[in-house]
């Protein structure tokens, strides 16, 4: 009788590993192939939409210029669908205020003979007996009497071509035309945008009262860090938010200067250092963390307690959307070396607040 050799642990583990890899690879591959690629239908070529007026709610002519898709397709009808989004979404939501129900087809160039088959507030279908379109021919169709959307911004006109004459079957192209609505000059928006900003030693009552615009460290010492603090407050309803940028230079006296800290650095007595941050610090004990109901945040380089930096052009704080009030406290430190030439050292630090675009 021949006994069966014992399985070594290496062989067992190896088999287990090989089988596991096959199982996982199989699952992953099947997941990948389950997702269909982003497929596109044929498109009209060189699409241009020209509106005679882009003002919100105005009555405008819409001229569509294009060439039919390649391959000289058979065309019996076209559907013009006014939507908030292009074709990537399955549904078409009509832009607020659009009204195509009284539109008329006033110009036809290229492939002609179309009439309006049906129309609603946001859709027009034109039809004619089926023809073989010339893909190289410039086409123009103008609709007059369309009431523009009332929302400022972009919209899309989805245009589908069909071989059938009622835009129901045998669709042979899908394309988007970009349209946009602008606000009339000197017409106030519903919510006027604002950007509130103030700077002072101490700020109270949402910028309505504030303290001094100046401060003094007193006499510098190579054995003691001099420090002080100021505040700034920001709020905006601009949808892109705001940024507060640091401008100004380090402390100078004639041609002597105290070194600005170009990377976040701890305060070190006896060194040449001028820096700021926007946090509550313990070394030295100065500053305060951000307060307020807004969503503004501090730039990383100025957001670590006890580390200070001063780099002209740096963003100190920002909000990426509208943001109610936030109060930021700026802590300043100055350290000087023993051999600092005597003199009156001063500077102007400017905080520049702008809306983002």
């Amino acid at each position, binding site marked *: 009788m021949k006994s069966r050799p014992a399985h070594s642990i290496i062989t067992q583990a190896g088999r287990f590993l090989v089988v596991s890899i096959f199982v*996982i690879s199989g699952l992953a591959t099947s997941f990948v192939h389950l997702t269909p690629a982003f497929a596109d239908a044929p498109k009209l070529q060189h*699409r241009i939409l020209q509106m005679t007026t882009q003002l919100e709610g105005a009555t405008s002519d819409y001229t569509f210029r294009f060439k039919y898709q390649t391959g000289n397709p058979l065309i019996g009808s076209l559907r013009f669908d006014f939507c908030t989004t292009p074709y990537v979404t399955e549904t078409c939501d009509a832009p607020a205020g659009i009204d195509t129900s009284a539109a008329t087809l006033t110009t036809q160039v290229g492939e002609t003979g179309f009439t309006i088959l049906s129309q609603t507030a946001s859709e027009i279908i034109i039809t004619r007996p089926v023809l073989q379109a010339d893909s190289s021919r410039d086409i123009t169709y103008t609709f007059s009497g369309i009431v523009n959307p009332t929302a400022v911004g972009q919209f899309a006109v989805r245009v589908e071509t069909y071989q059938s004459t009622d835009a129901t079957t045998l669709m042979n192209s899908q394309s988007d035309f970009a349209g946009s609505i602008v606000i009339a000059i000197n017409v106030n928006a519903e919510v006027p945008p604002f950007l509130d900003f103030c700077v002072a030693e101490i700020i109270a009552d949402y910028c309505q009262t504030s303290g001094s615009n100046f401060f003094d460290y007193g006499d510098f010492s190579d054995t003691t860090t001099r420090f002080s603090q100021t505040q700034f407050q920001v709020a905006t309803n601009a949808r892109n938010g705001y940024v507060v940028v640091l401008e100004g230079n380090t402390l100078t006296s004639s041609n002597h200067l105290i070194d600005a800290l170009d990377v976040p650095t701890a305060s070190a007595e006896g060194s040449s250092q001028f820096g700021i941050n926007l946090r509550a610090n313990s070394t030295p004990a100065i500053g305060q963390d951000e307060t307020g109901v807004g969503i503004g945040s501090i730039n990383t380089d100025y957001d670590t307690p006890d580390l200070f930096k001063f780099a002209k052009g740096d963003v100190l704080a920002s909000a990426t959307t509208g943001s109610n009030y936030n109060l930021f406290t700026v802590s300043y430190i100055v350290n000087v070396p023993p051999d600092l030439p005597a003199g009156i050292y001063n500077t102007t630090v400017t905080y520049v607040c702008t809306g983002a675009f």
Partner: protein
Amino acid sequence: MKRFVRVVASFLIFSIAALFPLGTANAQSNALSITPRKNYNLKAGESVNDTISVINLNKTEDLVIKLTIVDFKAQDESGTPALIKDPNAPTTAWSIKPFTTLPQQLSIAAGKSTQVPITVKIPSDQGAGSYYSAIQYAVVTGTGKDQVTIAASSATLVFVNVPGVAREQLKFEQFGAFVPNKGDTNGTFDGIYIAHQPQVMAYRLTNQGNIAEVPQGAIVIKDMFGKTVKTIEDANPKKQIVLLGQTRRIESCINPQTQKTEGQSGAEVDEVVCKDPGLKPGRYTASLRLLYGSNGNETREITAVASFWYLPWWSIIAFVAIVALIVGVVYFLVRKIRDMRDVRGRRGRR
């Protein structure tokens, strides 16, 4: 008599000094409210006379501001404007400095507002395209003998679109699920999310034309079975602009939530925060379609597809456990079958 004159003169000097203190230290408002952005659509040869509101937020001190038109460019891939304040810097190709007039200095009483007149006149031979600069409001804080003076400054970004046949070209760079850093100055496009769900989809575009573009579009996210799980109806919800020559990153929350609050002036403030979209573990595919093209210009489109995995730790552990179980069962069955064959083989040889 001389003594009387000296006394009267001294009295007058002290009185004047008391009424009009020397210097302006600590007596100036450093608080202002401005309009952050203005957009104009002007044909070549057209002009506009408009006003921009500036409010002195300080109720006790007057505000003095200097107004200058400065050019700006993009500081980075976000929408941070970098003001070009060097007076010797050459005027940018997109500057509205040559077309714009406004006052140089303003004084606004405490708690009051003023309307700053601005005129933009586009020359009749100006080509179609986008033109932009910023109106900077620099607070005049006065002079003091102190070591550090702090000053507030703000700016209105002014965009002018001159319609006509223009060169419009956005180059697609990148699309995917995105994790912004704090402050949203940068971030990373990640393919696998383990510790948290992806909250933001982003794409990067480079403007190679002469129109500052505001692309529009939508994003559809499907799961690994092809089912649509999220639709971002507006892929550019903040109408962010791709400036001339800029590579711009535009972000959209997958699941935005708007918190409405009221500002101090009573105006509504919409704060938008990105929340977890509630995805289940798995692989997701996002499809982006963007359109751009100004009125009368060719409509152009950009499409892109990206995928990402959401695999929280618990799902990885569960997946490994299930695979191990399957492999274990298969291995056990294979061994059993082999043992049975061995037994049959031995019986047969007997």
